[in-house]
């Protein structure tokens, strides 16, 4: 069967950027800058982009493009014994998909609530109580929450329709709509934000440089961590997406564009968010809002700011939550494509059938996050799958390809077809800088977890929804790598791929 392809280079770049731009660009990056040296944080951040983010993007783009397969197939074609690494990344993606979709569901609900500012004056109480129905602990599920179930299923339905239409007619077309709209909507929110009283103070908080902080190793690890998670690397997405590129496609410039546009979006999101934070501080007579990042920034602090806007409350509310929805959906679809393409190839199942089965199974599993304990379970699963899934999988991937295969072979593959050549720095960053930084992150994650268990949750919660989930993804990776390929001819390496 002929492999699907992107219809245009623009389509691929928008899909890759759409995958990279996610909720974290809006609710994580701005606070990271604020917390880690203000504008000075941009120095380690851009350094990390150039020495880890873009080099890994180039690696993953070239892997997928060279081997023309999903992550398990790509790794198996290099050497069958590394197929498990691809499957590990696939199951990491599955875990992320089933909780990420619920957050998109929340954003969809809040688009509706924006019309009447249904969250009222007590935005935290509305979100945690009325909407999430938060119980007293992760084991107390408290039943399904109707509005969350409905909007989560809407997000699954959108993904289903897009994936069913295929790569060119589904994913590419969806991103050609999502991405321009996302940028336009963000710009409208940004312009409203910077014209509010107090906006300058908010931007000052975010961008005023504190150079003493960038002397701290912690800030550099934070910068590398942010770059690593923001670019959708090490969970097989970029390998899968680049496998749909035509034979003569640029790799290097596409990686630069993807990395830079993603970070550019983050900077704009930071300006929008912190100008609004500055406005809230101004309204409160100099007191900072309590929650400046994560879920509560989006679903409690921003609604509170919307309440205080002098005009355009509904418009800004709808646009902000549409931004979250579009940013989330484009990433969610890319994560789902990883799973669909891997199962479809391994078991030789038609794409449409795989999409149907995956969407039903995924939607069913995601319902646990639509219960009253959903936020707790989501928070724990997210922490563990990031710290003990993606980071370690990324480290293994970089070590495998930097030391067990010849990077020069990949370079020989992508340099002749790329818009410009890269120097030796690509190999140096992958052999030295990236493994060191990821290695430090992994050690730090283990150390932190055993000295101060995450979020103050009881050990039983962390074991059930953290350690077991993270370990299950790895074990399932090994199990699926052991099973036979339904069509063994897929593993044959052609002359182009050698």
């Amino acid at each position, binding site marked *: 069967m002929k492999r699907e392809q992107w219809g245009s280079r623009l389509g691929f770049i928008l899909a890759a950027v759409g995958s990279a731009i996610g909720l974290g660009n809006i609710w994580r990056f701005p606070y990271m800058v604020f917390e880690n040296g203000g504008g000075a944080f941009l120095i380690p951040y851009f350094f990390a982009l150039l020495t880890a983010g873009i080099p890994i993007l180039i690696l993953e783009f070239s892997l997928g493009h060279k081997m023309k397969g999903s992550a398990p197939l790509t790794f198996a074609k290099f050497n069958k014994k590394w197929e498990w690494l691809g499957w590990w990344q696939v199951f990491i993606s599955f875990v992320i998909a089933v909780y990420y979709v619920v957050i998109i569901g929340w954003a969809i609900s809040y688009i509706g609530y924006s019309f009447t500012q249904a969250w009222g004056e007590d935005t935290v109480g509305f979100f945690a109580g009325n909407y999430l129905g938060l119980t007293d602990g992760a084991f107390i599920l408290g039943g399904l929450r109707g509005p969350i179930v409905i909007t989560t299923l809407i997000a699954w339905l959108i993904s289903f329709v897009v994936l069913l239409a295929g790569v060119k007619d589904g994913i590419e077309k969806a991103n050609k709509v999502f991405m321009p709209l996302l940028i336009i909507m963000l710009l409208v929110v940004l312009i409203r934000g910077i014209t509010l009283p107090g906006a300058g103070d908010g931007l000052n908080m975010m*961008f005023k440089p504190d150079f003493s902080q960038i002397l701290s190793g912690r800030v550099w690890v934070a910068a590398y961590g942010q770059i690593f998670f923001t670019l959708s690397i090490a969970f097989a997405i970029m390998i899968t997406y680049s496998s749909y590129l035509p034979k003569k496609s640029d790799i290097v410039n596409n990686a630069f564009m993807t990395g830079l546009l993603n970070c550019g979006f983050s*900077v704009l999101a930071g300006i929008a968010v912190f100008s609004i934070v500055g406005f809230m501080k101004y309204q409160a007579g100099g007191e900072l809002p309590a929650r400046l990042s994560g879920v509560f920034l989006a679903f409690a602090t921003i609604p509170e700011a919307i309440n205080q806007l002098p005009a355009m409350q509904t418009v800004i509310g709808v646009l902000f939550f549409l931004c979250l929805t579009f940013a989330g959906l484009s990433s969610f679809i890319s994560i789902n494509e990883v799973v669909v393409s891997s199962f479809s190839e391994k078991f030789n199942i038609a794409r449409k059938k795989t999409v149907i089965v995956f969407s039903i199974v995924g939607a069913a599993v995601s319902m646990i996050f639509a219960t009253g304990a959903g936020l707790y379970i989501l928070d724990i699963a997210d922490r563990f799958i990031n710290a003990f899934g993606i980071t370690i999988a990324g480290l293994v991937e970089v070590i495998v390809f930097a030391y067990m295969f010849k990077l020069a072979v990949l370079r020989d593959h992508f340099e002749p077809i790329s818009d410009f050549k890269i120097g030796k720095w690509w190999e140096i960053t992958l052999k030295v800088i990236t493994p060191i930084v990821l290695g430090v992150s992994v050690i730090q994650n283990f150390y932190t977890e055993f000295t101060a268990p995450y979020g103050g949750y009881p050990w039983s919660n962390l074991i059930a929804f953290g350690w077991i989930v993270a370990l299950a993804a790895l074990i399932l990776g090994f199990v699926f790598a052991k099973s036979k390929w339904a069509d063994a001819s897929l593993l044959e390496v052609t002359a182009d791929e050698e």
Partner: protein
Amino acid sequence: MTGGAIIFMIFGILVTWGGAAVCISIAMKKRD
């Protein structure tokens, strides 16, 4: 806003969007 904050905000925008613009122009030239 302080001068430092303005400089770093512009720095952030220039590096990312400016860098992307350079990459896009290279891609366009290559296409021609």
